[in-house]
């Protein structure tokens, strides 16, 4: 019987010990951002719209739910979107990079993303990039694990601890463009986005300028004249739209600036707590496994004909019991860290949630005003067009 349990016992011990031996190499250095050395002419610069990232609250693993605070995660969506915009803008490889709360269809490139994990130690996010024609450039999960020294004030630079993750995305985007996108395609993308914008304001004019191809991508069916008066008016509107979006960047800039200090401090403390919790969880799991194995081994030893094994069985059983008790103790200790982390998170939530709500309300208010104005312009453009082609205006007179 003992012979039967001995291999199992050994395997369990090895498994437990090997789990302890797993190491992750972390670093305070991060991926630098690449710049296109070829020199991009202005007409080949693609503007980028970044949607506010999704918080990913529905996709949190059950063992991470207690480490995730919804209000903090909501604030992180702005933080991450804005920092990605900063990385892309700083690279100089693109045109204007903006965080856009709504429709991205008239952007040359549209970036959307979901935060999958963010706990101070690890940030994971799913990122999708499409161009105006609908072609997917990137659909990939990114992960960055940082060292605790990333939060050390003596080591910390002006960049975010997870700057490397944003830089990786920016670098991948540049690499994709350099490898796959020719100049003609860039111009095509820009034209499509321009027509998309025009179509949004004057669908009766521009609806049939684009069509969906067999591959699901938008293709240019016809082009407006360079001196198209309706298009000229829409270009005026688009300049206003840029100005409006720039105003939103001011909102986001202020928000990120305000949350940066407390949020970074939270992540620093969260990092410590998460590390301790993970270590305790691993220790608890290992001790539980070893304790159970020891008890099974001890029970087996009591049945042994071998005197040494027989007389050592109480020690083995006691050891197993101690290991299981220690596993429970570590579980309790872990729970204390969870509560400490919850206190930290709640404290940050209380500070950050009102700002997030204010930001959302402001955005909605400004967007509502702008959209009301846009709607009036759409009606005016429709009337202008009706007047141009000699039709009666759509409105009742």
């Amino acid at each position, binding site marked *: 019987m003992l012979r039967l349990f001995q291999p199992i016992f050994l395997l369990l011990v090895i498994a437990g010990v090997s789990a302890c031996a797993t190491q992750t190499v972390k670093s305070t250095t991060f991926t630098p951002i690449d710049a296109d050395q070829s020199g991009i002419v202005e007409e080949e610069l693609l503007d980028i719209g970044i949607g506010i990232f999704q918080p990913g609250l529905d996709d949190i693993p059950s063992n991470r739910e207690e480490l995730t605070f919804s209000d903090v995660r909501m604030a992180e969506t702005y933080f991450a979107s804005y920092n990605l915009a900063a990385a892309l803008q700083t690279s100089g490889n693109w045109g204007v990079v903006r965080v856009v709360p709504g429709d991205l269809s008239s952007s040359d490139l549209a970036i959307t993303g979901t935060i999958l994990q963010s706990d101070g130690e690890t940030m994971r996010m799913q990122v999708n990039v499409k161009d105006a024609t609908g072609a997917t450039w990137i659909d990939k999960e990114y992960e960055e694990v940082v060292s605790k020294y990333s939060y050390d004030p003596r080591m910390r630079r002006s960049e975010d601890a997870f700057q490397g993750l944003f830089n990786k995305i920016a670098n991948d985007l540049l690499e994709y463009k350099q490898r796959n996108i020719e100049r003609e395609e860039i111009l095509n993308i820009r034209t499509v986005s321009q027509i998309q914008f025009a179509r949004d304001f004057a669908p009766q004019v521009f609806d049939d300028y684009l069509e969906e191809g067999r591959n699901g991508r938008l293709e240019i069916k016809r082009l407006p004249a360079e001196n198209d008066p*309706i298009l000229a008016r829409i270009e005026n509107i688009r300049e206003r739209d840029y100005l409006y979006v720039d105003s939103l960047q001011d909102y986001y800039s202020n928000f990120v600036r305000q949350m*940066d200090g407390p949020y970074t401090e939270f992540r620093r403390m969260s990092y410590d707590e998460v590390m301790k919790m993970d270590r305790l969880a691993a220790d608890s799991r290992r001790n539980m496994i070893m304790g159970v194995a020891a008890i099974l081994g001890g029970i087996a030893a009591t049945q042994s004909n071998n005197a040494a094994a027989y007389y050592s069985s109480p020690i083995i059983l006691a050891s197993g019991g101690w290991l299981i008790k220690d596993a429970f103790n570590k579980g309790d200790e872990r729970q204390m860290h969870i509560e400490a982390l919850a206190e930290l998170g709640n404290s940050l939530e209380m500070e950050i949630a009102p700002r997030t709500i204010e930001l959302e309300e402001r955005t909605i208010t400004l967007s509502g005003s702008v959209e009301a104005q846009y709607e009036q*312009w759409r009606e005016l453009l429709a009337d202008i067009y009706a007047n141009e082609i000699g039709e009666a205006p759509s409105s009742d007179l």
Partner: protein
Amino acid sequence: MPTISDSSSSSNGDSSSSSQSSEQQDGSQDSNSSSNGGQQSSPQVSGTQGQSPGDTGESGDAGNSGEQNSGTQAGSQNNGQQGSGQQTAGASNNGGFESNGSANGSSSAGNQGNGDDPFGDLSAGRGQVMTASERRAALDARLNEGFAEFDGMILGERERVQAEADEAGSDVMSNGGAGAGSGDGEPGGPLIVASAPSGSTGGGVMPAGNANREGDFSNTSPQETFETPDDIPSGNDDDVVARQLREAAMREPDPELRERLWDEYRAYTGLGQ
């Protein structure tokens, strides 16, 4: 746009729809004249229209074709837009338009704000027939009015946000990222202030990086400035919002928009009171 297409949406209907427009004028006239009383505020766009029998005392307005009459047209249109909920524009935006006569605001707001009657207040009170080009000019004038108001709203909002940022302090911003070459980022200030209408002064901070990207930041280049009206003081004691409005007005090439911006400035600084 890289190429020219076979189609243009423009200008093939200038000579048409006179009968339609006649009906339109009649319909709109009724509603506006009844609600506006003396029709003092109705934008009078057509310079060639005859007087309708029911109109009173409007013969002097015949020269307004295609022009923005800031004292009348603004009253109807902008009140209509305010009705759409642009209260965030702040005091600087509202003041300039409210002074144009509140008595007619509600009636024309219904037309403009709801989009029910796009030409109603253009020909209100006359029963006159507008030509297609006159209509186009009137609609363009409305569009330009909207631009001016929009610019004022956005500029005011940006100034407000900037002022708040200044109050909150600007020493904790870390927006740079690992800049290629520079590496230090660009602390402080709005990150992305790239594009602005030609008449605005939204600022332009060119991020570190590719120096060829001048097209996105051309709004910082020197622009022609226009003379200030006689009633505008030196502006030495202007606050940031007033200064923005002043600069926007001085750089606005379109005289109509420029005048609207000056109206905004007057309203904001209290000159009109």
